[in-house]
C-alpha cells in the first residue's frame, strides 16, 4: 500500500503548503492545486492498477501502545478510491481558477488545507480496517468538511448550514459509535474480523444504528435535513466533492457493515429499499421546488442516493431471496450509479459554480439565456442534465438500466420480494420522469430563453482550468454511457468484495447487457446522424431568416413574460402537496388601476418541519423546565448535598 500512502501524503503536503504560503495568493493556490491533483493522479493510477489485481493489500501501524491503525484495500475500497481520487482531482484543478479572489487569500489557503484533509480522510475511511481507524478518519472527514461548509461565514444562512451540518454529522457519528460499541460488546475487540459471529438480533440493531449514522452522512430521507443547507454553502468545487463523493462514503459504510455482518436477512433489504424509494422520490420533488440552483442540485443528490439505495436494496433482497443474478445486478447497478452520479453531479455543480461565479446570483428565476454567452458551460451542463435524468446514451441510463434489470428479476419472485421490487421499479420510473421535469426546468430557465435580470446578461465564461474539468466530466458522461462495459466491470469487482457467498461471479451475462446498451446507444447515434443528414439535405441553400419569437398575437413581448421556474414546477409540486407543502404569498390584484403586487412561493421540507416539532422543541421544553434547579439560592444548594446523601443511604 506504499503507493497509496505516498499519494495521500502528497495530497496532505499540498494542503499544508497552501497554508504555509498563504500570503502569496496565486503561488499558494497553484502549489496546492498541483500537489493535490498530482497526489490524486498517483492514487487513481494505483487504485486502477489494484482493481485489476486480485491480491488484497493491507497495512497496519501500532497505535497507543496496544492498538493498531489497520488499513486494507479490498475491491470495494479500491472502487470507492477510484471515485474519490477521480473527482477530487478534477475538483482540485477546477479550484485553481475558481478560488481567485485575491482579497481572501488566507481563507483560500485554509480552504485548500481542509480540502486536502477531506480528500485524505475520505481515502482513509474507505481503507480503514478496524473501528478506531474508521472512526478516526470518519470524524476528521466530518470536521474538515465542516470548515469547508463554513467557508463564507459572513452570511447568516451559511452559519445555519454549518451548524446543522455539524450537529447532524456528530449525531450520526454517535449512532455509529453506538453500533460499533454493541459490536465491541460482543466481540471484545476493535477489529472488523469476527463481526459475523455476533447474535442475529444484535446484528439487526447494529445495522439499524449504523444505517442511521451512515444515512445521515449520505443524506437519506429523513436524515438529509443538513444537506440542502450545507452543500450550497460551500464553494462550488467543494460542493462537487461533497455531493459527488463525500455522501457516497455513507453508502460505502452501509455496504461495508452489510458485508461485515454477513447476515442476509430480508429486513435489511426492505429497510434499505424503502429508504431509497422515499429519498429518491421526495428528493427530486423538493429539487423541483427549489429556487436556488445549488440547493436544487443538493436535493437531486438526495434523489440519486435514493436510486443507489434502491439498487443496493434490490441486491440485498436478491441475496436474501437466494437469487444471485438479481443480487449482483442490484449491487453492481447501485455501485455503478455511485460512480456515474459522482461524475455528472460534480459536473453539474461545477457548471452551477461557473454560473454563480460569473453572474453572482444563485436564484434560478434571475437567470436565463446563458447558453448563448457560456457555450462550453451550457453544453456541459446540458449533457450532465441528460445524464442525471437517466436518458440514453448517457451514463445515468446505463446504471439505471442495470438496476431495472435487477428489479425485474425480483418481480419474478413472490410475496414481499415481488411487492418491494415492483415498488422499486415503479418509483425508479417516477423518479426518472420527475428528474426530467426538474432538469428541463433548470436548463430551460437558466440556460435558455432570454436573461431575466441584468445579472445574467452576456456574461463570458473564463478560467481554463474550470472549463477543462467540466469538459473532461462531460466527455466521461458520454463515454461511460456508450461503453459502460469496462466501467461496469469495476463495480462488478467491487461486488465480489461483499462476500455474498457466491464463489465467483461470471462476467458473461453482464457483459451481454452492457453490450446491448452500447449497441442501442450506437444505433441511436447512427439514426440521429441519418436524420441530421436528411435535414441538412433539405436545408441545402435555403433562406434562413431570424426574427422575434411568435408572441401568439401579442406584439410587445418582454423578457418578464417568460415562463418562470416556479410556475413550471407548480403543477407537479401540487400533485405531491402532501409531502411538499407549497406556501404562496400574493396579495390579490384589486381595483381598476391595481397597485404593484408580488408573488412569492416556497416549498417546505416536511422532514425539516417535523424535526423541529418532534425533536427540537420537546427537548428544549424539557430542559427549560429543568433549569430552575440552579436558581442561585445557597440554602437549597446545601440541601442538594444533604438530599444526595440521604438518597444514597437507602442503597447501603
Amino acid at each position, binding site marked *: 500500500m506504499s503507493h497509496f500512502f505516498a499519494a495521500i501524503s502528497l495530497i496532505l503536503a499540498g494542503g499544508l503548503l497552501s497554508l504555509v504560503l498563504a500570503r502569496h495568493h496565486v503561488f499558494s493556490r497553484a502549489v496546492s492545486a498541483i500537489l493535490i491533483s498530482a497526489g490524486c493522479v498517483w492514487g487513481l493510477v494505483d487504485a486502477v492498477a489494484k482493481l485489476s489485481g486480485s491480491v488484497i493489500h493491507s497495512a497496519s501501524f501500532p497505535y497507543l501502545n*496496544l492498538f493498531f491503525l489497520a488499513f486494507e484495500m479490498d475491491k470495494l475500497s479500491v472502487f470507492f478510491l477510484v471515485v474519490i481520487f477521480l473527482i477530487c482531482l478534477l475538483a482540485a484543478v477546477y479550484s485553481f481558477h475558481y478560488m481567485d479572489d485575491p482579497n481572501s487569500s488566507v481563507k483560500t489557503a485554509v480552504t485548500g488545507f481542509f480540502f486536502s484533509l477531506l480528500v485524505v480522510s475520505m481515502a482513509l475511511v474507505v481503507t480503514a480496517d478496524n473501528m478506531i481507524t474508521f472512526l478516526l478518519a470518519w470524524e476528521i472527514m466530518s470536521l474538515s468538511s465542516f470548515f469547508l461548509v463554513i467557508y463564507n461565514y459572513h452570511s447568516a444562512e451559511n452559519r445555519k448550514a454549518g*451548524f446543522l451540518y455539524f450537529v447532524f454529522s456528530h449525531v450520526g457519528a454517535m449512532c455509529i459509535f453506538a453500533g460499533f460499541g454493541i459490536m465491541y460488546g460482543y466481540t471484545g475487540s476493535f477489529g472488523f474480523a469476527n463481526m459475523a459471529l455476533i447474535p442475529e438480533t444484535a446484528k439487526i440493531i447494529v445495522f439499524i444504528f449504523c444505517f442511521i449514522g451512515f444515512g445521515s452522512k449520505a443524506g437519506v430521507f429523513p436524515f438529509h435535513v443538513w444537506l440542502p443547507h450545507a452543500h450550497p454553502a460551500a464553494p462550488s468545487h467543494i460542493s462537487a466533492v461533497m455531493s459527488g463523493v463525500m455522501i457516497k462514503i455513507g453508502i460505502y459504510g452501509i455496504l461495508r457493515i452489510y458485508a461485515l455482518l454477513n447476515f442476509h436477512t430480508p429486513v435489511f433489504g426492505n429497510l434499505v429499499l424503502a429508504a431509497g424509494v422515499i429519498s429518491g422520490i421526495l428528493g427530486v420533488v423538493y429539487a423541483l421546488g427549489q429556487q436556488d440552483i445549488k440547493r436544487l442540485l443538493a436535493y437531486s443528490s438526495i434523489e440519486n442516493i435514493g436510486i443507489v439505495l434502491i439498487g443496493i436494496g434490490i441486491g440485498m433482497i436478491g441475496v436474501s431471496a437466494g437469487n444471485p443474478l438479481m443480487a449482483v445486478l442490484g449491487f453492481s447497478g447501485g455501485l455503478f450509479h455511485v460512480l456515474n452520479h459522482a461524475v455528472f453531479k460534480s459536473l453539474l455543480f461545477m457548471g452551477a459554480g461557473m454560473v454563480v461565479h460569473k453572474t453572482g446570483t444563485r436564484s434560478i428565476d434571475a437567470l436565463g439565456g446563458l447558453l448563448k454567452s457560456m457555450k462550453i458551460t451550457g453544453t456541459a451542463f446540458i449533457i450532465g442534465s441528460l445524464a442525471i435524468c437517466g436518458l440514453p446514451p448517457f451514463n445515468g441510463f446505463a446504471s439505471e438500466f442495470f438496476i431495472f434489470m435487477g428489479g425485474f428479476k425480483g418481480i419474478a419472485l413472490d410475496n414481499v420480494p415481488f411487492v418491494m421490487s415492483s415498488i422499486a421499479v415503479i418509483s425508479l420510473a417516477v423518479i426518472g420522469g420527475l428528474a426530467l421535469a426538474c432538469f428541463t426546468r433548470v436548463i430551460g430557465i437558466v440556460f435558455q430563453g432570454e436573461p431575466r435580470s441584468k445579472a445574467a446578461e452576456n456574461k463570458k465564461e473564463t478560467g481554463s482550468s474550470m472549463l477543462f474539468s467540466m469538459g473532461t466530466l462531460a466527455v466521461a458522461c458520454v463515454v461511460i454511457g456508450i461503453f459502460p462495459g469496462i466501467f461496469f466491470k469495476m463495480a462488478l469487482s467491487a461486488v465480489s468484495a461483499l462476500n455474498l457467498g457466491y464463489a465467483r461471479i461470471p462476467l458473461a451475462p453482464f457483459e451481454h447487457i452492457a453490450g446491448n446498451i452500447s449497441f442501442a446507444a450506437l444505433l441511436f447515434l447512427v439514426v440521429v446522424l441519418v436524420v441530421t443528414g436528411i435535414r441538412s439535405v433539405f436545408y441545402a441553400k435555403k433562406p434562413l431568416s431570424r426574427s422575434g419569437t411568435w408572441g401568439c398575437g401579442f406584439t410587445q413581448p418582454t423578457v418578464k413574460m417568460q415562463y418562470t421556474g416556479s410556475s413550471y414546477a407548480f403543477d407537479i409540486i401540487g400533485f405531491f402537496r402532501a409531502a411538499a407543502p407549497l406556501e404562496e404569498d400574493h396579495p390579490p390584484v384589486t381595483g381598476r388601476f391595481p397597485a404593484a403586487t408580488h408573488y412569492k412561493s416556497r416549498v417546505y421540507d416536511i422532514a425539516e418541519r417535523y424535526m423541529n416539532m418532534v425533536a427540537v422543541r420537546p427537548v428544549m421544553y424539557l430542559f427549560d423546565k429543568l433549569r430552575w434547579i*440552579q436558581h442561585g439560592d445557597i440554602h437549597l444548594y446545601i440541601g442538594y448535598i444533604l438530599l444526595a446523601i440521604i438518597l444514597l443511604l437507602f442503597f447501603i
Partner: protein
Amino acid sequence: MVEIVFLTPFITGLLAFVLPRTMGRQLLVVTGVVHLILSLLLWKNRPDAIFAGYFAVTPEGLLSLLVISLLFFLISIYTITYLKLNNLKAENVFTGFMLLFLSTMTMVTLSDHIMVLWIAIEATTLASAPLIYTHRSGASLEATWKYVLICSVGIAMALLGSLFLTLAMDLAKVDVPMSFSALTPVAELLDPVWLKAGFVFILVGYGTKMGLAPMHTWLPDAHSEAPSPASALLSGVLLNCAYLGIFKTNKIMVAAGLGDFSGTILMTFGLISILAAATFILKQNEYKRMLAYSSIENMGIIAFGTGIGGIGVYGAVICMIHHSLIKSSLFLSSGNILLGYGHRLITDTGNLAGRMPKTFVAFFAGFAAISGFPPFGIFIGELFIIVGAFKAGHYAAAGIFIASLCVIFAGFANQVMKICFNDAPGTTPFAEKAGLVWPQYILLLTSLILCFFIPDALYQTIVDAVNAIGGGLQ
C-alpha cells in the same frame, strides 16, 4: 524526598506576599519550571516519602501531578502577559495564592493517608477562595461565598466518610495505618456496611469539590468569576484532585469486592452530571459559564467511565488527562476573548475568526477537542467509555450517555459558532501577544500528540493506575 515537591511552591508562595508587586510574575514562572523539573524527577525515580504513611507516590497521583505541573508552568507563562494587560490591585496576593494553590494541589496528589488527603483537599479550597475573589466585585464575592461554604460543607461530609472508614476498621479489628496503600490489601476484611457508608459520604463530599451534579452548584459561579488563569487551574486540575480522592476510595471498594456498588453510584452521578450540564449549556449566554458546565459534563464522563470499569476506566483516565489540557486552554482563550471584547455575554461577542484569528484557532480547536473530535485525545477516551459501557451491558446508560452528549454538542456548537462567526457588534482591534496564545497552542498540541502516541513510561503509569481498580483493556 517527596515532600519537597509541594513544599517548594509553599515557600515561594509565602515569599510572594512579601516581595514587591511585580516580582510575583517571574516567581510564578520560576516556580513552575522548578516544580515541573521536580515532578519529572519524582516520576523518573520514585523516591520514598520522609513521612511514609502520610505521603506516597502512587501512579494515579503521579498522573495528576504531571498534569498539574505542566499546566501550571504554561498557565504561569500566560499569566505574565495577562497581569501586564490588566493590573490587579493586590497582585502579589493573587500570585501568592496561585502558588499556595499549586502546593496544596500537589499535596493532594502525593498524600496517601486518608485524613491527610482530606486536609489537602480542604486546603485547596481555602487557597483558591481568594483567587476567585480577585476582582473584588459583588458577583465575585457571591461566587467566593458559595464556593467556600458549599465546598466546606461538602468536604465536611467527606471527613465524616473518612471517619466511617476508621469505624469500619475498628469493627473489623483491622489494625493498619489509615493510608490507602495500607488499607487496599486488607480491604475485604473491613466491615462492608460502614465501608459503603464511608464511600457514600466521601463520594458526595469530594464529588461536591469535583463538580458532580447535584453538588456542582458552586462550580459555574466560581469558574466564571475567577480570573481566567485561575479558572484554568480550577477547572484543569482542581477537579482532578477531587476526583483523585474518589478514585483512591473506589480502589478500596473494588479491593473489598464492592466494586459493583461503587460503580453503579459513580455511573449514576456521572449521568446526572452530564444531564445537568446539558440542561444549562443548551441556552447558556455566558461563555465562561458554558465552559464551566462543560467541565461538569466531562467530570460526569470521567465518573461514568470509572463506574463502568474495564476499558471504561482507561477511557476515563485518558479523558481526565486530555480534559485538563484542553479545558485549561479553553479558559485561557476565554480570557483573551474577555480582554478583547470586554464582555462576558456571548451576545456581546462575535466574529472572533476575523478579529482575533490566533485566539480563534485556539478556541475553536479547543471546542472541537472537548466535544470529542479527533485528532484530539478526548475522542479516544469517549470511544473507550462508550464501547466499555456496551461491553459491560449497560445499554440504557450508554444510550442516555450518547443522547445527552449529542444535546450538549448541539448547545455548545451553537454558542461557540455565535462567538466565532456571528457579526461582531464593534470592531475594536486587539493585538494578540504571543504570550496569550502560545500556551494554548502547546496545550492543544500536547493533547494532539497524546492522541496518537503515548510514551511507554506514561502508558505504564496509566495502566498501573487503571489496573488498581479492576480497569484495563482486556
